[in-house]
Structures are given as structure tokens and as C-alpha cells.
């Protein structure tokens, strides 16, 4: 019969044999002390569960094993004296499944296929392992538990990178001299750095993917002449500064122009409502996409951009950007946009196709504002220009009205004085 690691307390999960009081081959008498077990609380004397011969010690002193793990085998006297063939058939029946743990025949050791494979791969001799699975079956954890703790050596750089990224060195095969784990080994094990998603990044990813998947995008391009607008801005900026608004951002001018054009073209100031239809907005609130590296992008909103003055919009925008960079944007700063503008002009980008900020109907992308060649009255001239890109949701609006809106927007930028109110 099997001797198992006894349960010596309610909370005991494992125990360590501190000493065997009998040697293999020695006779034992039921209830005489067989071994000492050390728990986290005390060292306890454990009596022999049966009389017979201690045929095998499965767990040597010093190694903790789970409770109920077989730790030794006793060939009990009854086992030796009663020949099964002498019993009537009914009594020879195998023990009921409930009498657990039933003793496996000592000559046959059951090993799970997985444990057998791991033992083969790790060069572990199964003969010296005690099984902790069903009826003493050796399972993978028994084999892994028998492995000597592997001493991993690594280069200092590899150790640092592994620590920084939380990669356990134990699982890595070293390719350096004498199996040393190198920086390359750690990076290969990591499969390249994985950057956890911030909330903003995650939302950005989800919403952009949803927009690209559901809204059929069409993008219109138009080269707008901003020569006059640049002059307009240069003249207004000092006036604004005098009134406490240090700068006049291009985005404020663009937002104002977009808002005025939207008021005239309400088809683009709308949203797609799944299962209902198209909802037009009464107010115009223009969001301005703002990059927050590396977290993602946020879109603070200029409320009532069409009806408020350019100076108010400029002041608002400067304040919003400051709050965005400081991570202090409140829900009110971000809610309620009906249209978005996004400006990559600062990045030397000529033009791009923006993705609509759902559930809005359209978005305006502004490329680099710079001097570019243009033809005016048959002459090649140099003018300050930018490529405007309007992406719109073709479910909500068609090409012609979108084109009319974009043309009107360009017109407002080319004759910017109307932005001051007419």
C-alpha cells in the first residue's frame, strides 16, 4: 500500500519529509513512527499506516511535496498473505472507485503521456519520481518538480532588459558562450517589445477601426490659396496679442471657416444613427484633433465655432491645447463635436486622407501651408497654399454636396475677411 504525505492541518497544502525513521526493506508495524514531517507550523511524527515491509521510499528528505502525494510504499502483510486467487470472485473484484487513493501495483508505474514526453526531453529518470496524479500517476508537474533548479547565466545587458520588460530568464535558451543568455536572446523571446495600450490609445484604435469598417469613406482634395489668409493672420495676430490672446493658430481660422461653411451646408453637419437614419445637428461644434504622444489623439471641441468670434476661438483653442498637453481636459472639453479638423501641415505633409471621427459625417484634413507654384492669369506665380482633404461618410452625404461645401470653405479661406463677421 502507499504511504502518502498526510494532511496534518486544515490549511496544509504541502509538507517536507525531514527524516525517514525506517530504511527501505525494513519491516514496519502499523502505528509505529515511520517518518518525521515538517510543516510550516511544526515537525510531526507520522505513524506507519500498515504493518509490512517498507519496500520503497519515493520522496527523500528535504523536498516539499503536495499533501496526498505518495511518498513511500509498504508491502502490507495482508497483501503478501492473501492470494487473490484464493478469494471468491465477488471479493476479488477490484476496489470501488471511491476508495481513493487505491494502491497501484508497485511493478507498474503510470505516467501521463505529457509527463513521459517532458521527462524524455529533460532527461529525467521516471524511476525516481513520485506520482501525484490520479492513483499515483506521474503527471507533468511531478517531472518538472524533479528538475534541478536551472541556473541561468545572462549578460548584464540581457539581465537588465529582461528585468525591465518582466521576461523570466529561466525560459530562454542562451546562444552566447557557455549558454549565456544575450540581449538578442531576450529580445527574441519577447518577440519584440509589446507596448501596453493606454486608455486613449485603445479608444483611438477601436474608434478608428470601427469608422474605417462601417463608414464608406470618400475623400475630396482641393488646393486652397491661403495667400490672403496668411496676410490676414499676420495682421490680426498682433491685435489679438494686444488683447491677451498670444497667438492666432491656423486651426482657429480653419475651424471658423469650416463652421461658417457648415452652417450653409448642414448636410455635412450630421451624424449617421444606425437603424434610425441621419440626424442633422442644429449647432456647429468643431473638434480639433490634437496629438498626445505617445498616448494617442484627443479632439477638444470649439463650441459654436460659427457664432463666436475668431478671437474667442483662438483663445479657447490655445487653452484647450494647453490643457490637453497637461492631461487636464475635462469631459466637457471633448464632448459634442459635430465636425473635426485635423492638421498635419506642421509635419511637412502635403495631403492625406483622414478617417472620420465617428459618428460625425465628415472630417477636414489640412496639409502643409507653404509657398507653392500656382498659375494665375496664365502666369506661374508663387502663392501660399495648402491642400484641403475632406473625407465624408457616403451613407450620410453624396459627392456633390460635399464638394460644394469644400469649395465654399476654400472660398472663405481665400477671402478671409468674412471670418470677422459680415
Amino acid at each position, binding site marked *: 500500500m502507499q504511504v502518502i504525505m498526510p494532511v496534518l492541518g486544515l490549511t496544509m497544502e504541502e509538507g517536507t519529509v525531514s527524516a525517514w525513521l525506517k530504511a527501505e526493506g525494513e519491516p514496519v508495524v502499523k502505528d509505529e513512527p515511520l517518518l518525521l514531517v515538517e510543516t510550516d507550523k511544526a515537525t510531526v511524527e507520522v505513524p506507519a499506516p500498515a504493518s509490512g515491509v517498507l519496500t520503497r521510499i519515493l520522496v527523500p528528505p528535504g523536498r516539499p511535496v503536495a499533501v496526498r502525494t505518495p511518498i513511500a510504499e509498504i508491502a502490507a502483510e495482508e497483501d503478501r498473505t492473501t492470494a487473490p486467487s484464493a478469494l471468491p470472485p465477488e471479493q476479488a473484484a477490484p476496489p470501488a472507485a471511491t476508495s*481513493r487513493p487505491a494502491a497501484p501495483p508497485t511493478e507498474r508505474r503510470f505516467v*501521463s*503521456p*505529457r*509527463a*513521459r*514526453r517532458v521527462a524524455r526531453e529533460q532527461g529525467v529518470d521516471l524511476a525516481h519520481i513520485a506520482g*501525484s*496524479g*490520479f492513483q499515483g*500517476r506521474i*503527471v*507533468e508537474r511531478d517531472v518538472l518538480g524533479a528538475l534541478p533548479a536551472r541556473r541561468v547565466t545572462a549578460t548584464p545587458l540581457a539581465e537588465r532588459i529582461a528585468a525591465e520588460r518582466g521576461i523570466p530568464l529561466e525560459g530562454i535558451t542562451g546562444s552566447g558562450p557557455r549558454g549565456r543568455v544575450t540581449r538578442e536572446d531576450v529580445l527574441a523571446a519577447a518577440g519584440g517589445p509589446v507596448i501596453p495600450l493606454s*486608455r*486613449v490609445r485603445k*479608444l*483611438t484604435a*477601436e*474608434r*478608428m477601426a*470601427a469608422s474605417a*469598417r*462601417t463608414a464608406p469613406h470618400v475623400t475630396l482634395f482641393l488646393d486652397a490659396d491661403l495667400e490672403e489668409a496668411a496676410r490676414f493672420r499676420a495682421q490680426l495676430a498682433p491685435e489679438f496679442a494686444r488683447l491677451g490672446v498670444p497667438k492666432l493658430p491656423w486651426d482657429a481660422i480653419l475651424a471658423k471657416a469650416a463652421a461658417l461653411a457648415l452652417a450653409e451646408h448642414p448636410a455635412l453637419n450630421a451624424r449617421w*444613427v*444606425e*437603424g434610425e437614419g441621419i440626424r442633422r445637428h442644429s449647432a456647429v461644434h468643431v*473638434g480639433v*484633433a490634437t496629438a498626445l504622444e505617445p498616448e*494617442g*489623439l*484627443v*479632439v477638444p*471641441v470649439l463650441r459654436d465655432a460659427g457664432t463666436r468670434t475668431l478671437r474667442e476661438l483662438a483663445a479657447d483653442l490655445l487653452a484647450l491645447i494647453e490643457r490637453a498637453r497637461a492631461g487636464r*481636459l475635462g*469631459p466637457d*472639453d*471633448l*464632448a*459634442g*463635436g459635430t465636425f*473635426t479638423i*485635423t492638421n*498635419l501641415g506642421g509635419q511637412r505633409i502635403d495631403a*492625406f486622407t*483622414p*478617417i472620420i*471621427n*465617428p*459618428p460625425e459625417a465628415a*472630417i477636414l*484634413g489640412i496639409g502643409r501651408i507653404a509657398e507653392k507654384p500656382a498659375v494665375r492669369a496664365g502666369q506661374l506665380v508663387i502663392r501660399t497654399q495648402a491642400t484641403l482633404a475632406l473625407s465624408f461618410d457616403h451613407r450620410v452625404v453624396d459627392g456633390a454636396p460635399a464638394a460644394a461645401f469644400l469649395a465654399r470653405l476654400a472660398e472663405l479661406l481665400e477671402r478671409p475677411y468674412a471670418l470677422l463677421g459680415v
Partner: protein
Amino acid sequence: MVTTSDRQTAAEAVTAHERILTYAQALNEALREEMRRDPTVFVMGEDVAAWGGGGVFAVTRGLAEEFGTERVRDTPISEEAIVAVAVGAAASGSRPVAELMYVDFVGLAMEPLVNQAAKLRYMFGGKVSVPMVLRTQQGAGRGNAAQHSQSLEAWFCHVPGLKVVTPSTPADAKGLLVSAIRDDNPVVFLEHKLLYGTKGHVPAGAYTIPLGVADVKRPGRHITVVGVHMMVLKALQAADQLAEEGIELEVIDPRTLVPLDEATIVESVKKTGRLIVTHEAATRGGYGAEIVARVVELAFDYLDAPPVRVCAKDVPIPYSAVLEEAALPQVTDLVTAARALMHDEV
């Protein structure tokens, strides 16, 4: 461009874009979209048009109104003819979607399914295709008793030439039905009567889920659970319970039984070392046995415990609620089996 607005509006917007449909509605949408796309697709079966405006489970609701009764054909109660005529229509240039009201009635129609649909292509040296779908529903749990509650997927899986699909979610139901309709082979598309009312996010518009790609419905480290139909849902419930004990189930829905994505199952078992298969079909000769066999063949050396079947008892499905519940595998059975595996009791 890349933008996002604030969290609240983002959450609202995402909700506005989520389309929550029932499994039946998702199937209806797949049929509708495919019938609009391909004029050779038509539907026929018992009570698919007139009854309540479209089928006793409402899967074909409104289709007759949109496509007319030429393409949404009510049939007499003639199961063999429904399937046999679908085979002939498919072999001659149509894409029929034939419906059997209950899978239990397929006994009347096995001849055209097994000897005609499944075999024409092979017998004729690849010269003919049979692009038909046989839609039907199976499963127990509603007190429909022995002749209206069976799960017979294994019958079909045994016949080379048939494909067998068993979606468990609305999104899978739509994508798989679209794929089944577009597939050039006879596809037995098995639905589950208790799943029709279940709800989930279903993308708008046409999309396909390829036949032969399993879905890991929940990842976990300790036990691979491969379930069919309702048992996927029950396995997920069991996984929730067991997570509190630190036992992690990896729940895999094969989604199509033929072809079977054995790679996903085998990879999972290589990780976990333990396997439970679970279906409402009777244990004996069930498809779970096939999955176990393949895992034993392909991943024997990764098994740390014997595979376990948590399937229906080998009994006709009884009527009384007490008996029916006892005949079917339940969440508690899965929990018990998983605990036994983790506590070395098997």
C-alpha cells in the same frame, strides 16, 4: 487622420455602432443579404413563408415579402423531396437553402443527403457541384421530447462530401451562413433552438467567416474545452465559476465540425494538457469522440490526463423537465469534470 473624442461620447458612439441582434435575426440578415446579392439563391421548406410571416423560428421572416414566394417557397410536408429537390436544383445552377424544421426529421431525407448531395461530385469525377445549404435546428432544453430534441451532428460528420456547421453566436451564425451559401458544396447548417433568442453584436453588411476556422471564445491555461452549440455557452459559464477557484478553461468553439480546425484544438491541448469535449448529442459515437481521437493521435505526448466527455446521456431525450435536465450536460457537470481533472481525480 486618427482622432478620438472623450470617453463618454466614445462609449456612446461605440454603442450606437453596435448592432445587437438575435441569432435568428442574424441568420435572417444573412439570408436576406445573400438573396439580394445572388439571384440564384432561394429558400424552401415547410412554413418558411406563410407561417407568421416567415418560419416557426422566424429565421425567414419577411423574406417572402421582399423576394416573393417564387424564391421563398413553402413546401408540403415532404422532407425527402425538400432535400432531394434541393440537390437537383443545386446541381443544375441554383443555390438552394433548404430548411428542415427539426433535424429529427432528417431520417426521412437521409437518402438524398447522403447518397446524392454528398456523393454526386465524387461519383461524377468532379464534374458537378452541389452548392446547397440544408438549414435545420437541433438541440434539447424545451421539453420537446424524443423526436424533436436530438442533436445529430455526428450523423452528418460521418459522411464524406458534406460540410457541417454549428454556430453558437449571432455573429458567427451570420458569417457562417453567408459562407455556407457561397460554398460550392452541400453544407448541413445546424442551428440550435435555444440559441435563436440569444443576442450579440452582429456587424452590418456582408462578411464571411470561413468554414474550418475555430474560435477561441475564452483563453485559459489549464483545460481545453471544445463545445458545440449551447455547450459553448455553458462552458463559458463554467469558466466564469471556475475562474474563482483559479482554474482557467480555454473554451473553443470549432464552429464547423467538417472541416474541423484541428490545429487550433491541438495547439490548445499542447498548452493545457487537458481536454474536455462537450455536446448535447449522446455520448456514444458522438463527435466529441472524434475530437478526442484526433487529439490523442496528434497530441498524445501533450496529454497530462485522460480526455473527458461531458455529453448527453445515451438516452432518448425525455419530456419531463427533471428528466431532460438530467439527460443533458449542464454547467455543473462541466465544473465537476474540470475540478476532477485539476484535482487528479481522473
